C-alpha cells in the first residue's frame, strides 16, 4: 500500500484491503477529496466544431488524473465532464445520446419543477452560462498549493488555447486557506463511504455504500448495476455530476443571527443550530453547549456520532442542515433508505471570505458563494429527491413546513424550529441564504471512455 506522507490533509486512510474498483479508470475527482488549503478553477468551454472538440478531448485525456492512489493528495489534479449539449456538439452517436436518462438529456434548467428551483432560484434568474446551452465541457483543477494550481491550469489551457472551434466561456477560480465556506463554516466533512474504493470509512461514516450508487458499472444497493450510457466502454466507470453555483447572502445571514442573538456567544449557538455543527466543524451531538475546535479539526472524531441519543432534536434540531442531508439513524416519517440518497460533494468556495460584520444588504451582493459538484451514478434522480424531500420540505423528519436553513429556498415568513425544554424556540424571518445562480448536469466519463470519445473520428 502507498505510504501516507501527509496525514493532516487526509480525511481517509488506506485500508489493507485491495480496492475492488477499477481506480485507474475512474476520474480522481470522483473519489479524491479537497485538501486544506485548496486552490483551483472551473473552466466552462463551448465546442463549435465536433472534430476540434474531439481533438481537444484527445489532447486533454492524458492530463486527466485517475483515482489510482486517490488517497494521496500531494499532486494537483484535473477532471473533465461533458453536458448533454456537449455530447451533441461532439457528435457522439445517436444511440449513445438516447441511452442517457431523460433528466440529463433535457438539462438542469428544464428540470426546475422537479428540482423545486423556483422563486429567486428560478432558471430565469440564472447566469446566462447555465441557460444558453453553450456550457458543453467543464474542466476542473484542484490543488493543495497555489503554485501547482497555476501549473495545472496552464496545462489545461494549452489543450484548448489556439484550437479553433473550442472556446473557454468562463473561468471560476477558488482559493480557500482555512477550509471555511462563505458563511464561515468548515465544510465538506461528511462524505459517503464508497465500498471497494480501498479505504476504510472514517469513524461515523457508517457502513460502506455499494459502489454502484456512485460509479456506473457496479452493483448498487438494490443488488444490480444502474442503467448505464451506451456503449459499455463509454458508460462504465463514469459518474454523473450535478453542477450548482450558489451566491451566499452573507448580509441576510448575519442579520438573521443578530436578530436572534444578542451576544456573539448566542449568535454562534444559533449558527450552530442551523447547521448541526459549530463553525469549527464540531458536531452539536458531541459538543451540545460549547464549541470544541479541537474536535472540529479532528477527522477521526468530528463525524463520529449517531442521533440515537438525540431523538428529540434538542442537540441537533431535526431541521438543521446536516441532519437533513444525512439523517443517519434518525427515525423518519417515510420509508427511506438513507444510503441511496447520498451524493459525493466537491464543494469549492469562491469570493470574499466570511466576515461576521457584513450586515448590509449590499453585502448580500458581494461575489461569494460556492460551486458544488454533486457526484453519483444517478445524480439527477438523487438531486431531485433531495430538493423535493430533504431540502425544500421538512415532513420527512418532523420539521413540518420548514426548509433547509442553509440551502433551502425560503418562503416569506419562514421559520426555523429549535427543539428545547420546556418549549421549542421558533426563529422567524429566515431568508434564502444561498441563492442559486445556475446549474447543469454533466457526465464524468472514465479514462477509457474519454479515449473512445476522442477517437470517434476513426
Amino acid at each position, binding site marked *: 500500500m502507498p505510504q501516507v506522507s501527509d496525514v493532516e490533509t487526509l480525511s481517509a486512510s488506506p485500508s489493507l484491503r485491495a480496492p475492488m474498483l477499477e481506480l485507474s479508470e475512474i476520474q480522481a475527482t470522483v473519489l479524491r477529496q479537497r485538501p486544506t488549503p485548496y486552490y483551483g478553477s472551473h473552466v466552462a468551454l463551448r465546442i463549435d466544431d465536433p472534430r476540434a472538440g474531439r481533438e481537444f478531448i484527445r489532447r486533454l485525456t492524458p492530463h486527466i488524473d485517475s483515482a489510482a492512489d486517490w488517497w494521496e493528495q500531494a499532486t494537483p489534479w484535473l477532471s473533465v465532464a461533458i453536458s448533454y449539449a456537449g455530447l451533441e456538439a461532439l457528435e457522439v452517436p445517436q444511440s449513445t445520446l438516447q441511452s442517457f436518462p431523460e433528466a440529463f438529456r433535457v438539462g438542469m434548467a428544464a428540470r426546475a419543477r422537479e428540482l423545486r428551483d423556483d422563486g429567486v432560484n428560478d432558471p430565469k434568474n440564472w447566469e446566462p452560462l447555465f441557460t444558453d446551452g453553450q456550457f458543453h465541457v467543464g474542466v476542473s483543477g484542484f490543488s493543495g498549493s497555489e503554485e501547482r494550481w497555476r501549473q495545472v491550469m496552464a496545462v489545461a489551457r494549452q489543450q484548448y488555447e489556439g484550437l479553433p472551434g473550442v472556446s473557454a466561456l468562463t473561468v471560476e477560480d477558488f482559493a480557500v486557506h482555512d477550509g471555511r465556506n462563505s458563511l464561515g463554516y468548515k465544510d465538506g466533512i461528511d462524505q459517503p463511504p464508497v465500498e471497494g474504493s480501498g479505504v476504510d470509512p472514517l469513524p461515523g461514516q457508517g457502513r460502506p455504500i455499494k459502489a454502484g450508487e456512485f460509479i456506473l458499472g457496479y452493483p448498487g444497493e438494490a443488488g444490480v448495476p444502474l442503467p448505464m450510457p451506451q456503449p459499455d466502454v463509454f458508460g462504465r466507470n463514469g459518474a454523473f455530476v450535478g453542477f450548482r453555483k450558489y451566491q451566499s447572502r452573507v448580509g441576510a445571514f448575519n442579520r438573521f443571527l443578530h436578530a436572534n442573538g444578542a451576544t456573539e456567544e448566542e449568535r454562534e449557538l444559533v449558527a450552530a443550530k442551523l447547521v448541526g455543527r459549530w463553525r469549527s466543524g464540531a458536531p452539536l451531538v458531541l459538543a451540545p453547549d460549547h464549541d470544541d475546535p479541537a474536535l472540529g479539526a479532528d477527522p477521526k472524531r468530528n463525524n463520529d456520532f449517531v442521533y440515537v441519543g438525540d431523538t428529540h432534536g434538542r442537540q441537533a434540531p431535526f431541521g438543521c442542515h446536516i441532519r437533513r442531508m444525512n439523517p443517519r439513524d434518525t427515525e423518519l416519517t*417515510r420509508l427511506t433508505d438513507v444510503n441511496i440518497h447520498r451524493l459525493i460533494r466537491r464543494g469549492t468556495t469562491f469570493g470574499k471570505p466570511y466576515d461576521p460584520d457584513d450586515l448590509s444588504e449590499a453585502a448580500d451582493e458581494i461575489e461569494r458563494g460556492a460551486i458544488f459538484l454533486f457526484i453519483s451514478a444517478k445524480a439527477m434522480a438523487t438531486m431531485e*429527491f433531495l430538493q423535493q424531500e430533504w431540502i425544500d420540505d421538512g415532513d420527512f423528519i418532523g420539521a413540518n413546513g420548514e426548509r433547509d436553513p442553509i440551502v433551502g429556498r425560503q418562503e416569506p415568513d419562514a421559520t426555523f424550529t429549535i427543539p428545547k425544554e420546556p418549549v421549542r424556540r421558533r426563529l422567524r424571518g429566515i431568508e434564502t441564504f444561498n441563492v442559486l445562480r445556475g446549474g447543469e448536469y454533466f457526465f464524468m466519463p472514465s479514462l477509457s471512455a474519454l479515449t473512445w470519445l476522442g477517437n470517434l473520428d476513426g
Partner: protein
Amino acid sequence: MESQTQARPDQDSTAEQKLQKLRDLFADAPQIAKTALGNMAQVLAAHLSEPRSRMESAGRAGSRQGQVSELTLILPFAPGGDRRMRALLQAQNGSFEAADKVGTLHDMRFVFVDETKLIFATAYDGDWDAYIDDFATKIPDFMDLAFSAFEGWPGIQNTTAVKDWIADHQYTAEGWYVASPNLTVPQTKRLEKVGEAVDEFLDKIG
C-alpha cells in the same frame, strides 16, 4: 396512459370563457343537462373565477393538489395472477403493514374489474417517483409478491424498468379533489396526537 392524458386544466382563460366553452359543449346535451347548467351558471362563474385550489402535475404522471397526488393503474393479470392477488389481499384482511411503513400513502384500493384486470388507486404525498428506489432496497419482497401478479412486472430491483412499467399503466385523473390538500400523512398523524394530548390536558385540569 401517460401519453394519452396530460390534458392539463385550462388555467389561463377567464371564468366567462370557461363557462362559454361549457355552454357550447352542452348545446347538444339533453334538456335536463342544459337546464341544470343554466341554473348553475352564476355559482359556477363564481367558483371558476376564484378556485379554492389548483390541480397540477404530480410529475411524470398523475395529478396533484397541494401535497397530495393521485395514482390510478389499470393492470392486466399475469396467468393465475388474479387468484394469487385475491388470496394475498384476503390474507391481509385490510391490514397493510408495509403501507404503514411507507408513510406517504393516504389510502389504497384494489378493484377487480374481472379475471383479466385490476384497478389500483391510491392517494399519496409528494411527487410521482420520489420513493420508488427506496421500495427496491427496503421492501423488495413485498413489492415483488404483490406486483408479480401482473403482466410484465420487471422485478423491483430494476427500478428504471419499474418506473416505465408504472407509467405505462397509469391513467391521470382529469378531476382530483382533496379535502385537506396541505395535510400529509405524517402531519395527519401528528394532528391526531396533538388532539389526544389536548384532550388529556383538558381532562386533567377540568
